[in-house]
């Protein structure tokens, strides 16, 4: 019920918001605030409630695919915490936007709620198609809001954002559809199993198209073209949500979909690790030179997320809690910084850090918060950022000292650009004369203050995050395999090798991959021959599968081959 509420109710809320007045923001802001608080409370309940799942409801069937698409939500620690981020940041965004958009607040709230629903859906879907649906759906409200409420170059920013991210995930759509023609249904487990039956080159192609979608969304180094302009032109509350919650969808995709489904070769892992590190350094260097405050924050986010991705692909045992803490810490601190920057922009009327300055004496309370948030972003020990970055560094150290040294260099860079930023914005004397805009209200201040305090609390007691992580527990696997009609044993073994022990994943998967590849190499184009099938049968028997299972697997293989031939024929067209 909770899951349904979190995913569907935001859309209902968005529709209900239509009923309020567009001109007078009073009633709409109150309604929005009430909804926001409710969703935030629900997300806390979700985090506290542990793993849970809804009934899998058959949603629709894609022509050409074997199984149905389910409306099936599943909450594990990772998703629940990211939902917490999305609801929390949306609430603060609704609060701060109240003083920024006097007119049209209603439409902004509608956008925020639909975005929130889409994000929650992304983080809670257990079905790949559902996930992809929400993953794409996120872009639309965000782009509309950028176009409606953005800065000077809002149209360009909205277009860049929408086209870049949609095009980035287009290959994933094709790959997913292709995979679905092979798999029993669109749940994780059957996708993973189906993938094993494909030839290695196809597997790699599918992997690439999945990776691309997430690389663009995060964004990782060569695919970050949309990010700076989008975050800069979007209204600050929206930027906070984009960086704090939406960009996490990319990292979430790596953890929740790429790692369990795909057998990753060491080369891929290394490439991804270094892409993450290069992003981290690149973001830091760009932030050093940025003069647009929101671009600076955008690059800083990019740097942190690069580190997170590098952490994910360190594949160490400590990776999952480490990356989650880093994501939450970054989500809250970057969110807070964007909110504060929005208020600073409102007060000073500019985004250029060379035209700011002197806020410390002009508006001490604001500056205290601002400085505080910046310190949180610096990952000083005792803040959540430190726990995240230290543990991620620990995971990266597993991959060798050099990556860890590069990651350490990023921490130095982060100090350099963040302190420059703080100095330019709040210290010194004001660079020019200006009329003060609307100041920070008590509600804004206290809500951002709560975020900062949360960071401290997580910094001293991160175990409330790290202990809530059971990515896929037994019940969920059972449920999934029931839906897939697979044998339990096989399901559990496949899953545990893929999901639970990611460490094991790297090694065991390579061996699986090796054997699969040799098996698959011959059947790339032509269907499996009889003797090969017999051979497979004997290997399966040796592996301890009984009569019925073997028969079903072979049948499946045959079906797969047929499907594949079809698919290839279509693709060739």
């Amino acid at each position, binding site marked *: 019920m909770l899951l349904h509420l979190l995913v569907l109710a935001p859309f209902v809320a968005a529709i209900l918001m239509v009923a309020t007045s567009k001109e007078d923001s009073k009633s709409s802001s109150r309604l929005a605030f009430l909804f926001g608080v409710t969703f935030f409370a629900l997300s806390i309940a979700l985090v506290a409630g542990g793993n849970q799942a809804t009934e899998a409801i058959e949603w629709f069937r894609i022509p050409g695919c074997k199984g149905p698409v389910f409306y099936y939500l599943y909450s594990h620690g990772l998703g629940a915490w990211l939902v917490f981020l999305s609801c929390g940041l949306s609430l603060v965004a609704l609060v701060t936007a109240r003083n920024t958009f006097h007119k049209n607040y209603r439409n902004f709230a509608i956008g925020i709620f639909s975005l929130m629903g889409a994000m929650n859906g992304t983080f809670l879907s257990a079905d790949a198609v559902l996930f992809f649906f929400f993953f794409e759906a996120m872009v639309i409200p965000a782009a509309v809001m950028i176009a409606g409420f953005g800065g000077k170059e809002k149209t360009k920013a909205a277009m860049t954002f929408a086209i870049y991210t949609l095009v980035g995930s287009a290959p994933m759509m094709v790959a997913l559809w292709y995979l679905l023609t092979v798999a029993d249904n669109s749940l994780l487990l059957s996708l993973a199993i189906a993938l094993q039956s494909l030839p290695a080159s196809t597997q790699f192609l599918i992997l690439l198209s999945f990776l691309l979608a997430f690389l663009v969304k995060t964004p990782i180094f060569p695919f970050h073209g949309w990010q700076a302009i989008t975050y800069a032109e979007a209204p600050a509350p929206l930027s906070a949500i984009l960086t704090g919650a939406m960009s996490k969808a990319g990292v979430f995709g790596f953890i929740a979909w790429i790692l369990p489904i795909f057998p990753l070769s060491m080369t891929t892992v290394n490439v991804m690790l270094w892409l993450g590190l290069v992003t981290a350094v690149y973001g830091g260097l760009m932030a050093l030179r940025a003069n647009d405050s929101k671009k600076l924050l955008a690059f800083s986010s990019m740097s942190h997320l690069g580190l997170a991705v590098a952490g994910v692909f360190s594949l160490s045992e400590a990776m999952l809690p480490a990356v989650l803490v880093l994501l939450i810490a970054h989500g809250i601190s970057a969110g807070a910084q964007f909110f504060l920057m929005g208020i600073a922009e409102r007060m000073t009327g500019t985004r250029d850090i060379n035209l700011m300055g002197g806020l410390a004496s002009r508006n001490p309370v604001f500056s205290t918060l601002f400085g505080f948030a910046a310190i949180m972003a610096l990952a000083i020990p005792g803040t959540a950022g430190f726990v995240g970055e230290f*543990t991620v560094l620990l995971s990266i150290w597993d991959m060798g000292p050099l990556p860890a040294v590069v990651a350490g260099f990023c921490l130095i860079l982060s*100090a350099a650009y963040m302190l420059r930023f703080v100095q330019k914005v709040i210290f010194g004397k004001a660079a020019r004369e200006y009329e003060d805009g609307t100041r920070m209200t008590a509600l804004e201040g206290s809500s951002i203050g709560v975020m900062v305090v949360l960071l401290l609390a997580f910094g001293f007691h991160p175990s409330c995050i790290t202990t809530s992580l059971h990515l896929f527990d037994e019940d969920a696997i059972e449920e999934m395999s029931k839906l897939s009609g697979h044998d339990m044993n096989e399901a559990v073994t496949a899953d545990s090798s893929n999901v639970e022990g990611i460490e094991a994943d790297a090694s065991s998967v390579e061996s699986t991959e090796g054997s699969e590849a040799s098996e698959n190499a011959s059947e790339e184009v032509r269907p499996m021959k009889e003797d090969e099938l017999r051979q497979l049968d004997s290997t399966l028997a040796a592996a301890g599968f009984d009569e019925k299972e073997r028969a079903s697997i072979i049948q499946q293989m045959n079906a797969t081959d047929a499907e594949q031939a079809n698919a290839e024929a279509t693709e060739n067209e």
Partner: protein
Amino acid sequence: MMNLPLWLIPLLPLVGTILLGAIAVISSGSKKGPSEGMVGFLAVLFPALAFVAVLLLAMGMPVDGIRGTLCNWIDIPLFKADFGFLFDGLSRIMLLFVTGIGALITLYSIGYMHGDRGFARFFAYINLFLFSMIVLVLGDSLLLTFLGWEGVGLCSYLLIGFWNKDVNNCKAANKAFIVNRVGDIGFLLGMLCLVTVGGAGILNYDALNAFIQMILTGGHVEIVLPILSLAGLLFFIGCTGKSAQIPLLTWLPDAMAGPTPVSALIHAATMVTAGVYLLARLGNMFALLPVVLFIITLIGLLTAFWAAMAGLFQNDIKKVLAYSTISQLGYMFMAAGVCAFDASIFHVFTHAFFKAALFLGAGAVIHALAGEQDMRKMGGMLKKTPVTACVMLFAFFAIIGFPGFAGFWSKDLILERLFMSGPLGPAFYVVGLLTAVITAVYMGRLIILTFFGSYRGSKESEEHIHEAPACMLIPMVILAIGAIFAGYFWADSLGITVFSDSLAPVVGAAQASVVHAGAHVNPLIFAGLGTLAALLGMFIALKVYGSARIPEAKGSSAPQGFKASWTFFFDSLHKYCGIIPVSVLAWICDVVVDKILQAIQWTVGAIATILGDGVSTFQVRKVRLQLAFSVACVAILVAVVLLTGGTF
């Protein structure tokens, strides 16, 4: 009194921070600001209470210390850390002077910061600093020490940039933080290194010592030596950052931009000695690493000598003291480098008193002269501010190692240990002694320029010169007393070894493991040579600066010519090896790589647009063409369906 929990000590200044921070934020809107009396009372209360708590605990401490674990901190696969505290001989001494001197300097600050707009904010930072420093020395694991380590760095940043209206102060603060960050990354990587060798629990000091013991008894030293050496080197990089040693020392002179009590507390007495503390804390590990120890000695020696020379060239009274601090820290590192950890901590202890007294005295002089820091505009202050002058004089005798004063005992001990440290010992000793002479020269110069001769400032300013108020003088006098008598906790020649006895359970094993070869020399010879060095230095200072005409003060107080190139040698080194490469890299990213990516993006976009334009020409009202297209497409679709086997 044994049941006093250890976490109470850091908690007290933390409560102070929260209270004062709240007062500062709430009152920031009002015109008048909070009552200084109340804020001052709160500010001194918590450090003083912490001092009392430390005192009570120190009295009843068992020989192997008190341990207490508060709760779990990080708990993930591969890594666990607790909030645990360790109160033993080493942390006892550190805590006693950190909280004691901290409380005294806070009291002094009430007078110094009188009337400042950020009064409450200042004391909130000071309390936060004391909290971090206490955590640094009281933590029972490297990770908790690191919490304090970065925490004091943060407070140092906040306090250097305290007067943030002047951008130069902010820049000095940024520099301090960033340079320290470089060192901190060394510390961080060092921890990771250790985790690879010894697993998750090894960051705990007890576990680390047990691990060292284990590999010693098992004879596995050879196997882990490379990675332990790497870890040791990385930790030492951390120390060079925090304790301002070559090459990461450039931030400390700039840090003098902060209020003077801050310089006294953070940049002289406590924070900068954290590196020495860490070396002593990890003594058992470092004792195994001869290469690293040699590097430490060498760096300490070079730093001590270089900074002493730089101290000679400064005109700003606080800069002289800053370089002097660096130089003295060099002595401590030299001692640590020859495994004389107790001697290095002893010097930390005595140095805290006399350097704090010197800084507070300098602060009183600056206060009296309404902010003037250039020594060329001072002179003759002996008559105008006699108490300050006396305090400074006593501290001066202590720092140059005049017999009987605190510095005499500790510096003498360090030089003696240096001499005995092996084949290179005598060479180290000679440089150390030479540095002692230079120390006496530049300190003599400072005293002569400030307190003797006639006043060289303007006439109007002369009338306003006044002695500092009582709340500033009391801490100064107490510290001066410390500067005289602190050395008597360990006076070998008088047979007093209280200090080394209390440290022995912690560092004794490490020191015993390094056997010093070398002839036994009568300690009196060292004492005699040390005294001679001090006297010689004083004599030179008197000859050179006593009667000479002081050049007119023109422009800034920064040194000129070759003096500048000596002083700023490491600044330029940083510039050419650190800042410029990074800027160039950033420039390449921004101007080259990013533009190329944008160009690619634009090209793809343009091609799409062109294609779109091309396709749109079909969008015309030519029914036949449209129809033909439709038919063709339907045919293709049918073909596809048939070819794929008609599964649709």
